[in-house]
């Protein structure tokens, strides 16, 4: 069920742990009566990629320290602009810190006025129940001209849904983040499962591939040595 502004306001005044928190709300018009959703502002922190620093992102083989060379954090003071060039991709975050109770979920979506100049705000838009932190925005400029993005501009909106029953889950790796975060693309359990699958596949197919080409999908390091 989609929550109206009135209902959102009510949920914001409940005691913990049922309280919905979106803070700081700097102006009244971020939460207008008669609308369904809260306007959220662009934060000051950005992550931009330096393409020359990395040839590719191979989720199984990239050491974390390589990512820190590839990604550069930028902090833009209030009043200055972050320039997003055409076809450039950057990670941003909302200025507001959000905390959803376990029975609410949310979608962060772009505002149409920004969509009309080619700005994509977010691609992974769903916010899980129980999430706490600033929401990471995947910014991309699909237009033809550079865009000056000023921290503090209301560029997205948060639409809140009520779920049928409370959903409790372990805190994610982004829990309590206060800016954009770059993820561990593959977590440990997935990595182990994939590697054991690859080893098993290699072992089973070994008799059949002694004279044939090596199987596809093996790790880069293995391919080089083979």
């Amino acid at each position: 069920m989609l929550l109206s502004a009135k209902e959102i306001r009510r949920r914001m005044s409940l005691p913990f742990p049922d309280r919905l928190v979106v803070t700081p709300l700097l102006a009244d018009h971020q939460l207008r009566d008669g609308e369904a959703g809260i306007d959220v502002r662009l934060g000051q922190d950005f992550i931009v990629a330096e393409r020359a620093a990395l040839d590719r992102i191979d989720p199984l083989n990239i050491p974390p320290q390589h990512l820190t060379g590839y990604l550069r954090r930028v902090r833009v003071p209030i009043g200055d602009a972050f320039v997003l060039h055409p076809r450039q991709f950057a990670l941003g975050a909302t200025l507001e810190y959000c905390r959803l109770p376990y029975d609410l979920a949310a979608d962060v979506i772009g505002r149409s006025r920004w969509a009309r100049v080619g700005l994509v705000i977010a691609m992974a838009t769903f916010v899980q129940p129980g999430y706490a932190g600033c929401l990471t925005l995947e910014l991309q400029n699909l237009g033809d001209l550079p865009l000056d993005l000023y921290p503090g501009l209301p560029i997205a909106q948060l639409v809140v849904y009520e779920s049928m029953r409370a959903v409790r889950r372990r805190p994610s790796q982004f829990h309590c983040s206060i800016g954009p975060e770059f993820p561990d693309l593959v977590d440990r359990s997935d990595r182990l499962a994939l590697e054991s699958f690859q080893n098993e596949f290699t072992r089973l197919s070994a008799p059949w591939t002694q004279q044939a080409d090596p199987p596809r999908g093996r790790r880069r390091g293995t391919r080089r040595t083979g």
Partner: protein
Amino acid sequence: MAIDDKDRTFFKLKSLHQLVLSLRRHCSHSASSLLLWGIVDQSVRRLIRDVERLDASTVAGADLVRRLAERGDNLHLYLGFLEAGEANRIPNALVSPLHAIMQPLAPGSRVVVWCGWIPGNYSAEPKVGECLKRTVEDVFRRRTHHVARAVPDVLAVLSFPAAERDNVLLHSALGHELGHVLLVHNKDVDKYPGRTDLKLDEQALRAAAERIDAETGAISADAKVSGNIFSERMYRQVSAFAAKTLARWRDELFADAYSVYLLGPAPVLALYDLAGLPGPSPTHPPGYLRFLVMLECLRLSGFAREDDNELGWLAPKLAEIRKACDAPPGPSNPVFPIIEECVSQHTCRIADYVMGASRDASAAPYTYADWARCYAPTQLASGTRNCLVDRLLNYVIPDCNEAADGHALPASLASILNSGWALFYGHWDSFCKGLGAASLQGKHRARQRLFNLLLKGIESSDLSQRWGRGDAVKR
């Protein structure tokens, strides 16, 4: 009461939180172990040039030069405005986060902050050149002898171990160092109400000298009889030593009291964590005296000892402190016990001096009233800080209090930092448990998240104050 410029100086230092934010930005995003920031003096500017000249000759140095150059233009332009006495013409884009702190302290006030763990940290260091030299040696891993010339005036010097860069709670130590700077640059603070109380220390000093005379006189008389000329010299040295020590201890206690004025109980707990209960030395009073001064300041500003989270945690430590009071003096120097006794009689006067002065300036911006609003005794039971701790326990930034609960909006830096301490000591296990942190690594991550919440809370509160001037959304 009319507020003159010096009173404003006293209170504008509350923009300390901007320094905390700048530390966070520059420490976490820089690989360098050397951080020079907010330097507002020509001689220190020369120092930078020395460092830069040194840098160019080494590979590691070239990297540092590059990093300095990235923001060097702005820094030099900023310094240029300040040196020309045109601080009011500095463009917004150039304003350092330290500007608000440095401007009221000028002229002659400087703060050097760097990252990297060196001896001599956390001090108002008169020979900053020596400290810088060691740091630069550390950076370049080779001995350097021509790096830094000594800078004559006192500077607040603060350095952090790399692992503690994001520990906002540790930054409360800066309040103590700023107390030193304030004392040094305001030698004529007679205008402050309560200054006469501080002068009583000189009486204490005379009393101490007389007692030492009396107690060591017998020894020296015996020595004269035995014809030992050296003991007469020793007697004079002991008196001079006592006077000097007492003056230094007084300065330290003033700085402690001032840090409590700025940041509430946070420095008390930070001191305990950092220093424990160290014994007396020629430069620092014994730990328990410092605690007594700080606790007296807390009491004067409305803290009760039992009904408060932080002081509830501190209560067991008080027993330890009292035990230290009763214990025989550890160090071998027999002068220390006499000085201790003299100073302990005047600790409350020092606290009175600092807190009494602060009460008289409630009309200034960033005033004591802001602080007192969060710490008034009537607020303690269901007060602001408990509300902030409640927010932290639910992984929410402690930036403001709900209007529905009748609390002030938004919260001050002091209340945010202290709510962090309260959570750290009172509810840390539940906080970690909620995050599923069973292992040491998990607790480390939880700690990092707590710091993140505090930093975001400080930023958010600051932004709310500047943006809406308290006109937040009515819920």
